[in-house]
């Protein structure tokens, strides 16, 4: 393969020189012949800066083709399995061969008139096949097939009709001989040539431009960054073809404008292989950044590994998921369960460490073009990923604990509500029914002795009912479930034996949040009543930044401690279970301020 590539390079260089020579010979022939022919030298000179070539232009065309060849050969040697390299090299060779069609030799003219026009489609083929070497899109593949076929048929038809009586368009004034001419006329061949320019350089070039723009629009962000220079250069070349098609009908532009158009096209043509090379250079740079990755990861904390990989692989959308064997599933860096995406916009590369699943990189599909790069980065990061996985595992366990705490609080709340209902609907109802019945009996009997006995019994029953009521209220106040936190706090402060200023936010919140805030206020006020020797207290609830803040303040003696076994410790546990915080400020003789901050999705 290497020999083939060197041969192609040598052949390409020779072809380029030959192509240049053919062009220059034409120029001389044209200039010399023009002396004896009806044209004068001025006209001939005008032609040399018009559609015909100059030395500089000729070199530019040959250099553009050489660049294609070299870029193709470099790509070929870097990735022998990718067809893009051979395709680019073929485009370079075809572009060089195209120049041989200007030869006055009948055989060279006939063969390379056909090959020359096909060369542009080899270039288009390579552009659409970038970077995988294969055209996967049905429309794009269709366009390239139509391009090859139509171009081939048109050029054959032109050669069949061409009788050498008139110069062809884009050629110097000396007529050539078509080896496959079947007669006809110069006019017919030139009409056919015009039709060819309209169909291929007009219609098909517009179609190619549309498909290139579509490719750019549909690409993922990372792929777009890589494709953009190449596709923009290709679109520029395509536009030049469309202009040429328009000039077939319009008046030929001035030679100065034509000169601009020529250099515009040739610049874009030179940019094409350069853009391809840049793509390759990019991959090499990325591989170099994998080297940096190894060094960088040594001082990267587990949570920074994703960003390091994003930089190394140049994919700002990359994500890392860690495999947890005991869960038989993936989690993210925070330890939350995560599913691998299964849609086309994201691609997953699974990484292993010592034969065991380790992690999955979720990335832009364009990285699939560089599997070695992704695997190299994965291998470089495997130790750090193993660490990060352990980190994620710990986070996952913590997350599980947190979730179970929330569930415990929820279950306890539900249980309290059930007990409250049981007390209310059971014993309490029986006792009140009994009291009513005894009163009826008392009224019917009208016996003073029984009357006082029944009155005492009813009184006793009322005490029992009141005790049950207090018990039920303490377990879980029904008003909290039915009317919400503000109403429950209002009911609560109304039973406190000194003035309490209440400022409660209206509106309902999740039951757990309301219950937690209520019990914070309830426990804090109970402490105020029992220990603080306060004369007044304030209860405030406010919703702020996704938190429900409940605050109880008194003017008592202070010195409250949220120690073990105290009600405050239990409250703090409860608030923390919901991801919140409980602050206690209680300087001696300075009153006590208890603030609970409870996250509430608002």
């Amino acid at each position, binding site marked *: 393969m290497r020999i083939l590539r060197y041969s192609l390079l040598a052949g390409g260089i020779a072809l380029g020189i030959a192509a240049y020579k053919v062009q220059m010979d034409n120029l001389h022939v044209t200039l010399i012949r023009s002396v004896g022919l009806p044209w004068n030298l001025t006209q001939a000179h005008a032609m040399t800066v018009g559609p015909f070539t100059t030395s500089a232009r000729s070199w530019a065309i040959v250099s553009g083709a050489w660049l294609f060849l070299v870029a193709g050969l470099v790509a070929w040697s870097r990735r022998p399995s990718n067809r893009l390299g051979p395709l680019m090299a073929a485009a370079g060779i075809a572009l060089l061969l195209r120049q041989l069609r200007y030869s006055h030799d009948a055989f060279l003219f006939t063969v390379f008139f056909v090959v020359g026009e096909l060369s542009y489609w080899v270039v288009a083929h390579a552009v659409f096949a970038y970077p995988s070497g294969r055209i996967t899109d049905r429309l794009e593949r269709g366009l390239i097939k139509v391009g090859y076929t139509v171009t081939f048929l048109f050029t054959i038809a032109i050669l069949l009709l061409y009788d050498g009586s008139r110069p062809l368009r884009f050629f110097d004034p000396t007529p050539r001989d078509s080896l496959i001419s079947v007669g006809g006329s110069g006019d017919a061949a030139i009409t056919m040539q015009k039709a060819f320019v309209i169909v291929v350089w007009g219609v098909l070039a517009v179609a190619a431009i549309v498909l290139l723009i579509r490719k750019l629009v549909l690409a993922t962000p990372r792929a777009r960054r890589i494709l953009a220079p190449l596709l923009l250069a290709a679109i520029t070349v395509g536009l030049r073809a469309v202009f040429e098609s328009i000039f077939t009908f319009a008046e030929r532009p001035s030679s100065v404008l034509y000169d601009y158009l020529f250099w515009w096209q040739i610049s874009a043509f030179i940019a094409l292989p350069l853009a391809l090379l840049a793509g390759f250079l990019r991959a090499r740079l990325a591989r170099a950044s994998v080297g940096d990755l190894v060094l960088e990861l040594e001082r990267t904390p587990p949570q920074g590994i994703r960003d390091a990989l994003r930089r190394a692989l140049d994919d700002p959308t990359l994500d890392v998921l860690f495999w947890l064997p005991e869960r038989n599933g993936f989690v993210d860096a925070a330890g939350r369960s995560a599913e691998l995406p299964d849609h086309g916009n994201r691609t997953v590369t699974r990484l292993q460490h010592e034969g065991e699943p380790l992690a999955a990189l979720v990335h832009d599909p364009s990285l699939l073009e560089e599997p070695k790069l992704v695997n190299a980065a994965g291998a470089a990061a495997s130790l750090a990923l193993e660490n990060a996985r352990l980190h994620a595992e710990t986070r996952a366990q913590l997350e599980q604990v947190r979730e179970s705490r929330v569930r415990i609080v929820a279950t306890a709340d539900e249980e309290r509500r059930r007990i409250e209902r049981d007390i*209310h*609907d059971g014993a*309490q*109802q*029986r*006792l*009140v*029914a*009994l*009291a*009513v*019945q005894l*009163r*009826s009996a008392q*009224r*019917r009997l009208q016996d003073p002795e029984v009357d006082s006995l029944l009155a005492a019994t009813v009184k006793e*029953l*009322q005490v029992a*009912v*009141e005790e049950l*009521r207090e018990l039920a*209220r303490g377990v879980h*106040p*029904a*008003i909290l479930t*039915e*009317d*919400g936190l503000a*109403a429950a706090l*209002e*009911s609560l402060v*109304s*039973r406190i034996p000194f003035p309490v200023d209440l400022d409660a936010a209206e509106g309902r919140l999740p039951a757990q949040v309301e219950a937690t805030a209520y019990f914070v206020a309830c426990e804090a006020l109970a402490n105020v009543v029992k220990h603080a020797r306060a004369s007044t207290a304030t209860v405030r609830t406010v919703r702020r930044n996704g938190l429900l803040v409940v605050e109880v303040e008194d003017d008592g003696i202070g010195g409250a401690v949220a120690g073990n076994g105290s009600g405050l410790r239990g409250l703090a546990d409860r608030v923390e279970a919901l991801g919140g915080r409980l602050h206690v400020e209680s300087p001696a003789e300075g009153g006590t301020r208890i603030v609970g901050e409870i996250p509430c999705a608002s």
Partner: protein
Amino acid sequence: MDRDSRVYTVVLGLNLCDHSSMRPTALIVDDHAAFRASAKTLLQDEGFQVVGEAEDGRSGLELARALDPDLVLLDVALPDLSGLDVAERLAGGHSKVVLVSSRRPGDFGVRFREAPVLGFISKDNLSAETLEQVLGGSA
């Protein structure tokens, strides 16, 4: 239908068509049978004719509309509608509504305080005296 079954759980009072009796009529709406029985005895002793009983809010509402009793003894906490909902829907009608509950007035919110009813009696305090007090001699 569910709705019908609720209606049929209601125990209708006797002698609905007994025009000789001019006693005031009463409807008891409470989900506890033992309390309904005690309250019924008490109301009858006080000269009421208990024309119906209902064990939930919807059937209570339907019976109140069908029977148009002079008094509705209405529990605040019912399994479906709240007693406050029932009271609001009966507001402006002929029936006088007295709320009862085994909870204290302070255990309820602002809707309770603004309910369009004649008064409230704590269930353990329900007696001829408290009833008369609330009815204010109008019964």
